[in-house]
């Protein structure tokens, strides 16, 4: 008679977890588009979608069906192979990212296994609720997350449209720029946890305080980079409709366009799961260390843990949406300056602070180090070289910038520009 070893049970369970979660997240994606429309309606004092089904709840289904029924058009003059591949190239990394994120701890399924009649005698079957519990999980996540830049850049280039081309270039430059502060703030977490295995990172936060409490600066940088990586507002430079029509997906229609759209939301959900794991301690309920939910438990404990993780992710996604409808879009030069002249030095500084504190053995005083970082940054800031005003004002005669005698505004401008 066949009996399964714990390793085999874990493997089958992992594949089931992946199959279930992929569908859950695809549904969550569709409904987060709905949530975004409702949230924006709420913030702008509108009603939002409310016609399809009760309270408009079937709207995502109607949207999906409409995308399927539309014409999948390929304009003349595009690079056909790349044009077809690009939506897949952006959707695939977005979909496979969450495979290494643990959504609950170890659950005991000995009862279930013996019910199936494949249990070995005197063996406890404990499985972890994670797709692939690989020991380089964090590196996998950041590697897969940054693959999305291929889809965006190739989609923009293949379209043979000047707007798409510019949008793809801008999105590519933006995504690679924001990867560096993301990697550096991740490094601070790795230094604190001493591991790049997701389960160990969460375990450390269950025993002690959340990483958010220890490294708030790194958390803010990471969240901002997460928004930039998924091309969310205020970093949706690639698709800013006021300058570039639709950016890199101007020429796309039907399901290919829907894949670009879905990938953005999928990236956001994966990013929220990543942030929950790194900074919010997974299913940890206590931010300050001490009592917490256990790592091991029965199946219902696993459900509670998944509920905690899912609600943290929901809050993070809703926060990203609130940011989108609150902040105006950055200009491209501001965006680049924020990444290269702002976030990279700051995240490098935080990382050096963490390694120095680790060297001195002050592991419990990381929060003081983070506060020190903020103070030092504010002290240095006034001495940094200021960039000249990049707004090129045109001196039209009769305008307030015209250098006409007696025009005080015009005189001020000519002084400022000559001096």
């Amino acid at each position, binding site marked *: 008679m066949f009996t399964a070893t714990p390793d085999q049970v874990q493997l089958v369970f992992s594949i089931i977890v992946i199959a279930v979660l992929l569908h859950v997240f695809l549904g969550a994606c569709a409904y987060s588009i709905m949530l975004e429309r409702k949230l924006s309606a709420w913030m702008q004092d509108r009603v939002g979608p409310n016609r399809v089904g009760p309270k408009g709840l079937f709207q995502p289904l109607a949207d999906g069906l409409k995308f399927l029924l539309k014409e999948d*058009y390929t304009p003349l003059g595009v690079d056909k192979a790349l044009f077809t591949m690009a939506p897949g190239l952006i959707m695939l990394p977005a*979909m496979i990212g969450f495979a290494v994120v643990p959504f609950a701890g170890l659950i005991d399924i000995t009862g279930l296994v013996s019910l199936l009649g494949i249990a070995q005698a005197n063996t406890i079957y404990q499985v972890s609720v994670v797709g692939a519990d690989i020991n380089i999980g964090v590196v996998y996540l950041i590697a897969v997350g940054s693959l999305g830049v291929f889809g965006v850049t190739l989609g923009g280039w293949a379209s043979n449209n000047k707007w798409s081309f510019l949008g793809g270039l801008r999105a590519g430059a933006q995504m690679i720029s924001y990867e560096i502060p993301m990697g550096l703030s991740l490094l601070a977490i790795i230094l604190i946890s001493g591991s790049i295995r997701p389960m160990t990172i969460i375990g450390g936060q269950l025993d002690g305080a959340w990483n958010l409490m220890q490294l708030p600066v790194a958390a803010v940088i990471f969240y901002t980079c997460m928004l930039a990586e998924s091309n969310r507002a205020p970093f949706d430079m690639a698709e800013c409709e006021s300058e570039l029509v639709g950016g890199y997906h101007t020429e796309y229609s039907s399901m290919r366009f829907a894949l670009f759209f879905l990938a953005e939301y999928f990236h956001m959900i994966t990013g929220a799961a990543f942030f929950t794991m790194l900074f919010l301690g997974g299913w940890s309920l206590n931010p300050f260390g001490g009592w917490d939910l256990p790592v091991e438990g029965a199946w219902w404990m696993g459900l509670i843990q998944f509920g905690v993780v899912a609600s943290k992710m929901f809050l993070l996604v809703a926060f990203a949406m609130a940011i989108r409808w609150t902040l105006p879009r950055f200009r491209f030069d501001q965006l680049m300056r924020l990444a*290269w002249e702002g976030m990279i030095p700051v995240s490098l500084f935080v990382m050096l602070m963490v390694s120095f504190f680790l060297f001195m053995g002050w592991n419990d005083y990381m929060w003081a180090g983070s506060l020190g970082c903020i103070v030092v940054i504010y002290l240095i800031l006034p001495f940094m070289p200021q960039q000249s005003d990049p707004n090129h004002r045109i001196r039209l005669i009769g305008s307030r910038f015209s250098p006409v005698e007696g025009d005080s505004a015009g005189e001020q401008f000519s002084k400022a520009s000559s001096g």
Partner: protein
Amino acid sequence: MTILALDGIISYLPVGVIILMATAFIVANLVLTSIIGPSAQGAVKGLAYESGMDPIGSARKRFNVRFYILAMTFLVFDVEIIFLYPWAVTFSKLDPRSPESALFLGRIMFFIATSVVAYVYAWKKGVFRWD
């Protein structure tokens, strides 16, 4: 805490499964929409959409060299960060204030300092100025 996990290459099998499933989802969607959706061609319909104007020339043109320079600067930093990951895992396991730990910290400080020199040079040269 106890960690129960698979070891070796078999632990990557679920990653392969999810890649297959995601590919199947994408291909199925693209094939389905090209079967179900209508299809019509036309000379004007095939033009690139550039705000309603007839496109002048192709989009395969030379573009600003800043994008190249930025990508090269990115490469310097990305490779640096990749080198820092194994260092971070090892360094956090060393005893605090031990000579070994000081050696590790000193070496990585020198390594970071070399790329900070490159960073300051790029900043002074105006790589990060896009106005």
